[in-house]
């Protein structure tokens, strides 16, 4: 018996709706098996993982905060990937955004006005854009593979930040520990309610703007054409080089914004590592969201939920962090696998029938 894919004439709306549900169901079943094997009540475990984080206002707030950088970066990357441009280095652009944004409170610690915050945010975006422009430039000018250069640049900027906070930007009153001064007042984003900071609005705004751009504007059309049919795009007068630069600067700028948002809210200072891998996790978010800004929003929340659920599982049930990671991996696998159903119909053929079909 073998499995055969048949391309559907058009995207199945039905499957598009049900594939995530099916994926979730399969994950839940697999998860239940794993949890029972570890001697846990699977229902309890699943409840803690998926539902408990949504039962308290505080953890819902935390969910929004955690999803913010993922959505910001993921939205930018989804445009990038649609254009067939492979920015894998959002983590580095995030870090550069944090460095640029953090420069203002570190250099002018006494400057306290709403403009401080605006300047930080603008600098953050500029930092991310500039750092994103490097692989784009290297690709346009020297045809250097952008997957590689953007990834390598992540390590470089992380070491640069490390040097900054251990050397020139170290808090003079900080016992020589690798931290900058802690930010205060207008060097931090205001809180909207509870523990939700204003950065959440950036994520929502980014999603809306990009959704409109992709659906209604010529630029969105250009991105799609250059991504799926670059030759046709060239005949239409679009430039591949400009598209590479545009998508890198867009995704880099959003990653930079995510970086400065983090240091102006959750982290509150510069330190050797700012992000627990948001730039890489956002790649998953972009694909889970099917490279669609609205989808990215949902995917970002889902991934954030799985982080929170993993934590909750450790605390409430003593499940190790590794099981949480395995669980996350399985969830991704099933979502990816089930997405196949949207474009394809799956049939199982016995080998005899396959042979017959071949003979016809």
């Amino acid at each position: 018996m073998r499995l055969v894919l048949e391309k559907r004439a058009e995207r199945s709306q039905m499957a598009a709706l049900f594939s995530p549900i099916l994926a979730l169901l399969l994950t839940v079943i697999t998860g239940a098996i794993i949890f029972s094997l570890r001697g846990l009540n699977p229902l309890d475990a699943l409840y803690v993982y998926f539902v408990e984080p949504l039962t308290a206002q505080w953890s819902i707030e935390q969910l929004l905060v955690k999803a913010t950088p993922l959505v910001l970066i993921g939205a930018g990357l989804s445009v990038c990937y649609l254009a067939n441009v492979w920015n894998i280095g959002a983590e580095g652009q995030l870090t550069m955004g944090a460095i640029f944004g953090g420069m203002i409170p570190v250099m002018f610690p006494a400057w306290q006005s709403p403009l401080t915050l605006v300047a930080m945010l603008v600098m953050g975006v500029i930092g991310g854009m500039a750092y994103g422009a490097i692989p784009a430039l290297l690709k346009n000018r020297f045809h250097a593979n952008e997957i590689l250069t953007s990834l390598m640049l992540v390590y470089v900027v992380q070491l640069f930040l490390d040097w900054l906070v251990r050397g020139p930007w170290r808090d003079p009153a900080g016992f020589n520990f690798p931290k900058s001064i802690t930010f205060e007042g207008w060097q931090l984003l205001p809180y909207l309610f509870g523990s939700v900071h204003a950065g959440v609005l950036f994520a929502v705004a980014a999603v809306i703007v990009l959704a409109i751009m992709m659906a209604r504007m010529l630029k969105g059309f250009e991105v799609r054409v250059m991504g799926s049919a670059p030759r046709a795009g060239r005949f239409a007068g679009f430039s591949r080089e400009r598209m590479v630069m545009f998508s890198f600067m867009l995704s880099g700028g959003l990653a930079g914004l995510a970086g400065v948002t983090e240091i102006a809210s959750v982290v509150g200072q510069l330190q050797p590592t700012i992000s627990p891998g948001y730039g890489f996790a956002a790649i998953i978010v972009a694909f889970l969201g099917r490279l669609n800004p609205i989808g990215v929003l949902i995917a970002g929340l889902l991934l954030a939920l799985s982080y929170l659920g993993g934590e909750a599982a450790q605390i409430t049930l003593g499940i190790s962090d590794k099981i949480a990671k395995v669980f996350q991996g399985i969830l991704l696998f099933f979502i990816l696998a089930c997405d196949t159903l949207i474009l394809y119909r799956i049939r199982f053929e016995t080998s005899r029938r396959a042979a017959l079909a071949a003979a016809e």
Partner: protein
Amino acid sequence: MDMFTAILLTIITAATPLLLAALGELVTERSGVLNLGVEGMMVMGAVSGFGAAFLSGSPYVGILAAIAAGMAMAVLFGFLTLTLVANQVAAGLALTLLGLGLSGLIGESFVGQPLATKPGNVFGIDILVVFSLLLTAAVSYVLFRTKVGLIIRAVGDNHGSAHALGYGVIAVRYACVLFGGACSGLAGGYLSLVYTPQWVENMTAGRGWIALALVVFASWLPWRTCAGAYLFGAISILAYTVQTLGWGIPSQFLSSLPYLVTIAALVVISGNRLLTRANTPACLGQAFVPDR
């Protein structure tokens, strides 16, 4: 042993896991499949290799287990991306996530355990170093001098035509993905059995990503991959050597040198457009579904 030989040997051992994993990925990519899950396959190889060697007492059983574990992970990736035509980039990242979690789980009881014996040496060089060089030669020969290599490259460059000519695109890709898994698993096993004989969580520490970078850096050519791995190893080791001289260069700068040099070398090599274009698998990362 004089200083020069000692440093040379250090460079070679540092480069060997990178070379092994990169060779596997090179073949995978030549067939048109981009597997970003090298890190996940490597770390599974490391834990399985160590575990098998620890439980059986034989490092060779460990090596086989490492290869098997890498292949098992590759099967998962293959099913997802080849059979179900899921996105390769996302599937590779998921594979890494899964590998890091699963290896930690499997390895819980191996932490803090020493290994009784290491694999043997040939002329004072461990056999896996020798093997990695032989493998480079073999991959180079098969890819460019045999019909099998021709088919692999055809599948990677134009899967439509390869299919029309009657080659089983999916089958060829499965084989190449499995080969990549085996090599990555072996590279992981090298870490936990030879290089630093122990198991600790996340012990691959990003080497899978470096291996991926090396493949592109080498523009998909086996001997250039070998040179790239040694160059990368050499710069990391020389960075340490420079530190011991006390010149006062910030160590962060020295640590970032291997990456900067990789970028610079890439720019120089890619500038030569003819060469890269000739070697980049045209169908890299694209899913294939046979029409019927």
